[in-house]
């Protein structure tokens, strides 16, 4: 019984890791005022890049770095179109998803069915990993998990308690006021989109070099869309995202476990999406200000707008 709990908990944390990574990035991006619906595509790019580079070089860390670079690069397109061209962020994000999925499918084709010899290992934390029950659950994971937690806390801290964070949040709340202080809105938003993309790439890298050892088309399996829901569910707060990511991740894991009990897995799979709607619903009833949604999210801003 104990083993089942440990196993389920471990798998929950592993399943939630890419979700958390992607969400941190999307939170940063959205807080600066840009909506990026292309997470699914960017994640796929990250996954395929990490896989190929790891395959070729034998070192998953090169894969990770390459994934960050590639996903940041492709996110640049969305940044350019949304910020400099002020086009519809919705349409641009969807284009990014299609591009990302398409390119990754194309580029990854030759590598289907060829497993990695070297995947990202597990790093049990000495001493802590030996604690009964809690040890194996929390302290016996690959580097991606620890990175995700640390980065989530770092992102939260940066957004709330640093000058940079205030600038980012202000860019999303009131770009005109922010610019009047002499701050370059364009630059902040560009960086946030690109950094956000890098996080999605990290998530993808986790999928292809840590979670599994091989590449298949459609590896991301809709996780990018869950990230978008999760960003809202977490109310744009990276700390809440930690909880949310593992909640949603848990659903992935429990889906099939609860099947023998008569609960259809599809019903469980609906829950993340329904709960996101519920959160928005409740927020609307209470006070939308508490929702924390960046006031100018997805509104194009032209410099010098009166």
């Amino acid at each position, binding site marked *: 019984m104990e083993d089942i709990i440990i196993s389920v908990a471990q798998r929950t944390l592993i399943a939630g890791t890419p979700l958390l990574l992607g969400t941190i990035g999307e939170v940063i991006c959205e807080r600066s005022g840009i909506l990026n619906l292309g997470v699914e595509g960017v994640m796929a790019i990250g996954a395929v890049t990490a896989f190929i580079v790891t395959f070729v070089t034998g070192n998953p860390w090169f894969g990770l770095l390459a994934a960050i670079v590639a996903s940041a690069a492709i996110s640049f397109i969305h940044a350019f179109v949304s910020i400099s061209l002020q086009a519809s962020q919705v349409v641009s994000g*969807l284009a990014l998803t299609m591009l990302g999925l398409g*390119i990754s*499918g*194309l580029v990854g084709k030759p590598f289907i069915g060829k497993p990695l010899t070297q995947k990202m290992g597990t790093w049990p934390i000495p001493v802590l990993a030996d604690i009964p029950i809690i040890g194996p659950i929390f302290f016996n994971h690959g580097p991606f998990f620890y990175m995700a937690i640390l980065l989530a806390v770092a992102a939260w801290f940066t957004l709330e308690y640093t000058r940079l964070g205030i600038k980012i949040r202000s860019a999303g709340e009131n770009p005109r006021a922010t610019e009047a202080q002499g701050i370059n809105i364009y630059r902040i938003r560009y960086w946030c989109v690109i950094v956000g993309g890098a996080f999605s790439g990290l998530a993808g890298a986790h999928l292809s070099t840590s979670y599994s050892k091989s590449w298949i088309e459609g590896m991301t399996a809709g996780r990018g869309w869950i990230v978008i*829901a999760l960003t*809202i569910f977490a109310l744009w707060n990276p700390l809440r995202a930690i909880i949310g990511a593992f909640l949603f991740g848990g659903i992935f894991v429990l889906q099939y476990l609860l099947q023998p009990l008569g609960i259809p897995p599809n019903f469980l*799979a609906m829950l993340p999406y329904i709960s*996101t*709607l519920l959160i*928005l619903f409740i927020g609307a009833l209470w006070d939308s200000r508490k929702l924390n949604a960046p006031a100018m999210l997805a509104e194009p801003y032209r410099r010098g707008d009166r």
Partner: protein
Amino acid sequence: MLKIKVTDRIDILPRHSFLSLVFSLAAGLLAISLIFLFSGVNPLYAIAKIFSGSFGSMYGLKETVTKAIPLILIAGGLTLAFRAKFWNIGAESQLLMGAIFGTWVGLNWGPHLPAAIIVPLMFLAGFIGGALWGLIPAILKIKFSINEVISTLMMNYICNEFMTLLIVGPWRGKTKFGFPYTDDLPLSAILSLIPGSRIHYATLLVAVVTVIMLGIAVYKTRFGYEVRVIGENPDAAKYSGIDFFKTTLIIMAISGGAAGLAGIGEVAGIHHYLSYPESISSGYGYTAIIVAWLAKLNPFYVILSAFFFAGILVGGDAIQISLGLPAATVQIFNGTLLVFLIMGDFFLKNQLTFQWRPKRN
């Protein structure tokens, strides 16, 4: 240093629009070629194959028309929604809901009714299914200010799971050897095809008529006028007494319903039974967004635009077979063309002036 000033372009003539379109597509194709080149595929061969596969043969043309049918319907509905700035990303699931409702009618009432009755009933059910599913995000937006991009997106996934639940569980067919499919629709419910093709012409007719009606609605009716005002300036719409609530509901009922029609059309015309959501909807709901965009939200142009993108889809199948490229390759076309269309739109609406400013201390 070089300073670039961006200002609104004041006179936009139709020929500017056309040129911008041509340039976008050309630039897009160039970019796609580069991507192919980078991935070790001969771009000239690939692009030629795509176009010959879809337009170069009788078979290809017929397939293109077949794939254009749902695109026309969905994109037509989307032009209405997008004009009112209601970002309906949920056409994919509105299609599926239409398929579900229509199939239920077909399976349950079909056996006892002749084609002339059951087919219109199925279409009606399909429309209602899609319309209802589309109304939910509309209500969520009007009553609770919930952003429609998110709600329609979530509805896509909720519907996906719901439909899978149905076909794996209560709706699983008895004649399907345990596979997660429903039973076949009765013969009277199956749409006839143009001989030698897969074109279910009934749906095609419905699609073309719908789009024409939508075009007339947008440009000539009071309703279309109100939609355009809402999209242009929602504050002015409120001031002018336009009923936001009612108009938004009607828009989404029509948009969802059109997608629903496409859904039942696919089932009754091509598949004949419900299976996994992805195989029924095939991403039409998302592709239709680009179709509507390319058509500049003009319902009349949707037919051409849908035809074009259907051709890309068919061509994508062709190169999948002949070059062994993955199915996702088509997405590269969609994504790249969309990006360049957006860029082209930008240069159409804006004038760039270049200034040299002496660098100051």
